């Protein structure tokens, strides 16, 4: 005890008199410390664009980001990714909405897609990007995923549309030509019925959750030449085309036209993918990642040779599809916008895009990469995508997306279960949607 006190006394910290030299030394050290701290804070604030740090919250779609892209980003830019968190996309909306509404700045960068860009962007929770920050050659769906009402809130990380995947072996066994997949809805229904046997189903879908039911209806609506909203954002999905579309879906499940009844309880596209690769389902309409999972020898009964891929069969129009592209946006509350923008740029760059296509089976966000040899070789879906891109590919992201899709999905399911006619169901949903949209517009 004495020794400690002695040392402290000797150091001039307690008791004793402080000499002028010692005072200047201590003051100099303190000032230096404060300066160093201020510099560190400035660097952390990311004003320079080099160095600094960011935090990212993402969905679980792209494992490659944590494994490869982040180390590459840190090495290339000197910016540290202090926190990278992955959350299942079905749980992410609530987390982000709660976080952003309370002004939480824990994350600088967040995953987004058409509905969230609209909802969070309109609420003022996303940082608006300058025109100069947006590359010129983005594919329209990918750009739509990060925009709302003419404002761009982020940059895309992958493009995605649904196309048709089919099991060539099953088609052949059912007496169908595996090289001539259905091109029209009638051909598709016939094929599904022919592919259905005691243990097999011709077609399966993911109607089991809110967004799944909406997506399946929207896709059929577009294939039947219909629209969700008119130019003034009034719901028009209860049109003749809408009723016809829902009527066709109801027939598929109610009249046993070849749709797997478990469709009504398949919750996710990943579950649908698993069902397909088990080899007892003839046809599914799914996102591009289906190719990668179906050709994975460790998991799938299919191979690149037995897997078929084509554009969706049309009803009133030759084809159409729904878009599911995703991107990254910057939080309005971020204090690290420059480093965050660096991250967005890197992910949308051809170098990273090539990896996402080749390793994970998602479509590239740049038009230029659609003809890239490595990309086309790794993901033949790109060729189908190019053909599918000639037709409509929409998702109708809007600030009221959650409300409208929830009510619409309930009505669609009611119709699918035979509790309401397609017309009654869609009229009820349209009336509810109109009220909701007017509420958002403050009318």
């Amino acid at each position, binding site marked *: 005890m004495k020794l400690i006190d002695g040392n402290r006394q000797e150091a001039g910290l307690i008791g004793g008199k402080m000499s002028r030299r010692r005072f200047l030394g201590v003051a100099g050290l303190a000032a230096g410390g404060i300066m160093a701290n201020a510099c560190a804070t400035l660097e952390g604030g990311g004003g320079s664009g080099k160095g600094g740090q960011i935090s990212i919250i993402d969905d679980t779609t792209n494992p490659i980001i944590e494994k490869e892209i982040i180390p590459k980003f840190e090495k290339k830019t000197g910016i540290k990714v202090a926190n990278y968190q992955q959350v299942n996309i079905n749980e992410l909306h609530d987390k982000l909405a709660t976080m952003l509404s309370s002004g939480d700045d824990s994350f600088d960068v967040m995953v987004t897609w058409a509905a969230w860009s609209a909802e969070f962007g309109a609420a003022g929770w996303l940082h608006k990007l300058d025109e100069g920050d947006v590359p010129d050659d983005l594919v329209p769906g990918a750009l739509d995923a990060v925009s709302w009402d003419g404002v761009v809130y982020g940059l895309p990380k992958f493009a995605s549309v649904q196309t048709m995947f089919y099991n060539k072996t099953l088609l052949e066994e059912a007496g169908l030509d595996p090289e001539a997949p259905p091109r029209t809805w009638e051909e598709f229904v016939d094929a599904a019925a022919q592919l259905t046997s005691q243990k097999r189903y011709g077609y399966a879908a993911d109607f089991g959750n809110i967004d799944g039911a909406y997506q399946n209806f929207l896709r059929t609506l577009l294939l039947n030449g219909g629209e969700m909203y008119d130019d003034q954002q009034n719901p028009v999905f209860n049109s003749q085309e809408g009723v016809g579309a829902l009527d066709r879906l109801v027939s598929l499940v109610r009249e046993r036209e070849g749709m797997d009844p478990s469709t009504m309880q398949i*919750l996710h596209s990943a579950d649908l993918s698993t069902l397909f690769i088990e080899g007892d389902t003839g046809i599914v309409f799914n996102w591009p990642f289906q190719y990668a999972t179906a050709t994975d020898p460790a998991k799938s009964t299919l191979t690149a040779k037995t897997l078929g891929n084509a554009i969706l069969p049309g009803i009133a129009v030759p084809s159409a599809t729904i878009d599911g592209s995703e991107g990254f946006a910057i939080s309005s509350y971020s204090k690290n916008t420059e480093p965050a923008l660096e991250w967005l740029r890197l992910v949308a760059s051809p170098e990273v895009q090539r990896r996402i296509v080749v390793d994970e089976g998602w479509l590239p966000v740049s038009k230029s990469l659609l003809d890239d040899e490595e990309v086309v070789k790794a993901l033949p879906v790109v060729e189908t995508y190019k053909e599918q891109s000639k037709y409509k590919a929409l998702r109708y992201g809007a600030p009221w997306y959650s409300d409208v899709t929830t009510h619409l999905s309930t009505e669609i*399911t009611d119709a699918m*279960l035979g509790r309401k006619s397609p017309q009654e169901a869609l009229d009820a949903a349209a009336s509810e949607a109109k009220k909701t949209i007017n509420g958002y517009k403050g009318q």
Partner: protein
Amino acid sequence: MTKSIGAGGGTKNRFFSRGRAESPDSRFAFWLVFPSAAIIMGLLGYPILYAAWLSLHDFKLSRPQSQPFVGLTNFVQMAQDPEFLAALGRTTYFTVLTVGLGVLMALGLALLLAQEFRGNAFARTLLLVPWAVPPVVNGIMWRWIYDGNYGALNWILLKFGVISEAKLWLGTPESALNAVVFAELWKLLPFITLIILASLQGIPRSLYRAARVDGANAWQRFIHITLSSLRNTLILVLILQTMWSIKVFDVIYVLTQGGPANGTTTLFYYGYLETFKFLDVGYGSAVAFTIMLLVLVLTCGYITLLRRQRGSSKVAKEEAKA
């Protein structure tokens, strides 16, 4: 042991009783308890008051700039909202089934486990398994069991010829709600059973022997000794399970996400959708506040019932003494 509890109860009564001088001990006890009681009241009270305030406003998270005071509009809207009323109906169905069946089944199981038989200890340990399973895992497990293509339930029922083709247990609103009820029952049974079992073991054996000597048959012994002694425990279990059933969430979230066609959307899940999916915090708070009032009213009802029964049994005992 009984004496010391009685003494504790006496101290508590003195502490809260009016007109008697407070001892230095009770004042000291009060100040010891006060800080933690104040923190707990703050932690509970502030959110409740804030939720009440929110429920009187048109508060949408997506429109943070405008939150006008709307009085009781949210409550009026709720009373006229067919989705809310439907959710209330489903919650009632769910609660009545899980509480009613849960208590009956748990009573049966507890009576069985209270008997001496070989493997009793193992059976009691096994009983804890559902309770030890985390709620989300429970939901996922039942999703697998109910799966239309590969589910164990279909496999077993097909194997024994109970059904001729695989059923989609989660495919229609009615069957999905019953499936959720069953999954919840499986989860809650161990807890209720253990509470009843513990209470059963506290009933003196001498009462049964005396009743036998007096010529009471098994049914009479069950009604007048077992059930009568379990009354307080059963009321406690009813209170707890009613509260838990009204605010059921996890099993629905994992198993059905409120579907199909809102068929499993109970009040709590409905409040969650309004608040976190549609970001309508004002309306969601009104729903949450209503749930709280509902639970409060039911709990008060149970407690009144308990007091009345205590009162009537006291009178009966005094009459018997006289």
